[in-house]
């Protein structure tokens, strides 16, 4: 198949359908509306599309559909994701596979509608209650967004866990040539699903309520063991290797591309830098980042926030290499020259 020029939001929706998504529930919010619009047009042929009455309703419909064995998905943007947090915790508690696409914008509160990354903590730490983790994938372009949505369904089914694809407004709104993988994503048996099958002889119950503390502790331990496995197996990152690099940038999503432009500009001025780009934000590539940073003068974490991923970067480095931060917020996007200047400042005005 040849490439087509597609908007990120639409490409994500098409990739989700190609990956076998058969239940979509959403509520409109900029800058991810084209995703729901696409789903409303094409999902009815494949399964269920519901424009819910609220974000809360949408995530709980996802819970219900996932409990019944569907490949269920919802999408939203920052304030909408905030509303979904309770449902995400319930999905994690009931071990339900669910894919949540977050096309983030500026905050806090209603904030603005331009691209931002102030939802790193929201995605990786979550706002729901209890000890739970959500796998978080962070694409840096339209093609990768489609691949990560596909991977999200695979990971959700494999680990029976919610997966967030954390994009930003640029990825949602931008058009790029894309080739969507249309190969069927094999179905993983869901013998636990509450799907109305009476031939099993017992009822499947999907629930996150455990009133017996012994059982609930066991449930928490089982979840922890699952998260350990995810942390062992699913870490993903990209390192633009440069042996001579004296500085290492850390960035994810759209800013990682701006960093690449900054690295080119720095090179022209005789300063070598490299980029470490986490592709999974949970599990975070702690060890790989620490290893990649060894021997660098410092690490510069560039985010479209006032500093969120920098905490994980510092946890990775364990003080072995100095870590600095450069961020813009509210829909303001840094330019390559700002990053160049930040590097030069930290190098001592070179």
């Amino acid at each position, binding site marked *: 198949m040849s*490439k087509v*020029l597609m908007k990120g939001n639409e490409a994500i929706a098409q990739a989700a359908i190609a990956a076998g998504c058969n239940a979509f529930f959403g509520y409109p919010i900029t800058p991810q509306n084209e995703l729901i619009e696409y789903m409303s047009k094409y999902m009815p042929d494949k399964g269920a599309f519901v424009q819910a009455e609220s974000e809360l309703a949408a995530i709980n419909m996802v819970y219900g559909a996932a409990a019944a064995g569907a490949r269920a998905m919802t999408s939203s943007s920052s304030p909408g994701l905030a509303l979904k947090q309770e449902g995400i915790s319930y999905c994690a508690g009931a071990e339900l596979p669910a894919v949540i696409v977050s096309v983030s914008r500026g905050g806090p509160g209603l904030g603005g509608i331009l691209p931002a990354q102030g939802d790193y903590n929201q995605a990786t730490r979550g706002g729901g209650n209890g000890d739970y983790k959500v796998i978080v994938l962070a694409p840096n372009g339209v093609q990768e967004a489609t691949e990560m949505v596909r991977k999200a369904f695979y990971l959700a089914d494999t680990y029976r866990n919610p997966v967030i694809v954390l994009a930003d*407004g*640029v990825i949602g709104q931008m058009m*790029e040539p894309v080739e969507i993988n249309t190969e069927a994503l094999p179905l993983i048996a869901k013998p636990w699903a509450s799907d109305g099958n009476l031939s099993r002889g017992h009822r499947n119950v999907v629930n996150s309520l455990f009133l017996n503390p012994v059982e609930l502790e066991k449930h928490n331990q089982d979840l922890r063991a699952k998260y350990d496995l995810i942390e062992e197996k699913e870490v993903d990152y990209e390192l633009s290797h440069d042996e001579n690099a004296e500085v290492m940038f850390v960035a994810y999503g759209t800013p990682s591309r701006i960093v690449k432009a900054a690295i080119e500009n720095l090179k022209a001025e005789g300063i070598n830098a490299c980029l470490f780009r986490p592709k999974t934000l949970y599990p975070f590539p702690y060890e790989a980042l620490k290893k990649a940073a060894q021997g660098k003068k410092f690490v510069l974490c560039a985010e479209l926030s006032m500093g969120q991923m920098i905490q994980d970067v510092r946890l990775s480095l364990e003080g072995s290499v100095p870590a600095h931060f450069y961020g813009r917020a509210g829909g303001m996007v840094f330019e*390559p020259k700002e990053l160049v200047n930040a590097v030069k400042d930290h190098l001592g005005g070179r």
Partner: protein
Amino acid sequence: MKTIKCVSAGFGGQGVLTVGQLIAILAMDKDLAVSWMPSYGPEMRGGTANCHVVIDAKEVSSPLIAEGITHLLAMNQPALDKFLPRCAEDVVIVTNASLVKNVPSDFKGSLIPIDFNQIAQDLNELKVANMAAFGALLRTMPMFSREDGIEAIIKKLGKKNESLTELNIKAFEMGYAKEA
């Protein structure tokens, strides 16, 4: 190749986003890396629209053009005023001459003023002014041919509005052929 950083800007409704998409399609069909990023949200509601198209050999680094615009299509005066300070020194600027009157006297790049509205009026279809602009803009990008441009119009707009395709192509050719 030298990175192309093209901005297409004007009033909402002038079709500047479509011009950007046509260029992006051309680049894609030549197996180049390309991104198309529109203005969206409140910026659109003010009546102005613009898109950034970045073309590179292998990979587009930043899809947002902060500075160093190499090609600018300004369909109105605010578009020129907004993006001129972000242009490279050797920028090529195509302007919609009847709506862009003030170009700073110290401007050093190439200026191609063409009255696209007049071309559209001559064809009795105001909607096709942007196709004339697409033609003029494309001519400033030697990597693409006139035939490439026509093909992109058919690919992008042929199905959507068949009755207009012929006029679209005619306007494109007039814009392409027009000497500034």
